């Protein structure tokens, strides 16, 4: 350990506030990035699940058959 005591570690001979603010903001922003990415993922999944359900519950919107065939008798 480069410091004699825990309080020396915290104050860092007067440089403590500068150092700790930097480490704090670093950890905070990296955590925020991860959480934001996670909430976006969950949001995308939720939205798509909703759309899938909508599709499944409204059969009238199902695509009709592309063509129908009937036999014709020439002559």
């Amino acid at each position, binding site marked *: *350990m480069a410091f004699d005591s825990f309080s020396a570690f915290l104050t860092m001979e007067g440089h403590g506030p500068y150092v700790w603010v930097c480490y704090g*903001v670093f950890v905070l922003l990296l955590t925020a990035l991860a959480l934001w990415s996670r909430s976006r993922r969950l949001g995308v999944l939720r939205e798509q699940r909703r759309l899938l359900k909508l599709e499944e519950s409204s059969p009238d919107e199902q695509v009709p058959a592309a063509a129908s065939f009937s036999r014709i008798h020439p002559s």
Partner: protein
Amino acid sequence: MWTLFHKFGSPKWFYGLAGRLMPWLLALGLGLLLAGLVWGLAFAPKDYLQGNSYRIIFIHVPSAFLAQSVYLMMAVAAVVTLVWRMKLADLFVRAVAPVGAVLTFLALFTGAVWGKPTWGTWWIWDARLTSMLILLFLYFGAIVLGSAIADEKGSARAVAVLILVGVVNIPIIKYSVEWWNTLHQPATFKLTEKPSMPPEMWVPLLLSVLGLYLWFGWLACYRMQTEILQRERRTRWVRELVRAEGH
């Protein structure tokens, strides 16, 4: 060769690969980062000139390194977008641009807080600091431009051109400390020379740099997966995946 190229370009294939890589990237990245930071904060010796404020280097240098690397990676992806129209390349740019912006902000912020006790000022308009600020604006530009254009292909191309124009800023950042007189100290790591620091200082620094790169790898994979889910939502495999996750 071409089959490999197509495979690389396939979002489905990438989605699976990212899923397999992510646990390793996250565990290794966080482990190295934590080791480097604790070592740097508590165990590395004090700098004889700057005192303890130099401990900011263990987050400042990794953030600044990665901020520039991410931009270079985006530039490579921009070339791929323009030349081969590969969808994954544009997805990568969209996924990582906000991360690059945050890293650039961190480099600027920690630099300013480090500058106060070391130089006596938070900010000065010198070459290194100004070119880094321009990098932040380039990231903002890429993010805003990407969301401003609705047409997917047009938007991808516009962002790619912006990124390639801005890439001229990267060598300016790198050599600014040599070309101009600046308050900023010269580079800590050079490929051709041994570091000017003792190993008790540069080993933890190297650990935190590697850790942050791996952590970024994890986050980039995760965010690209999300972009793929969004962009490929009409494909059968994404529908099945969404349905499976719902239960």
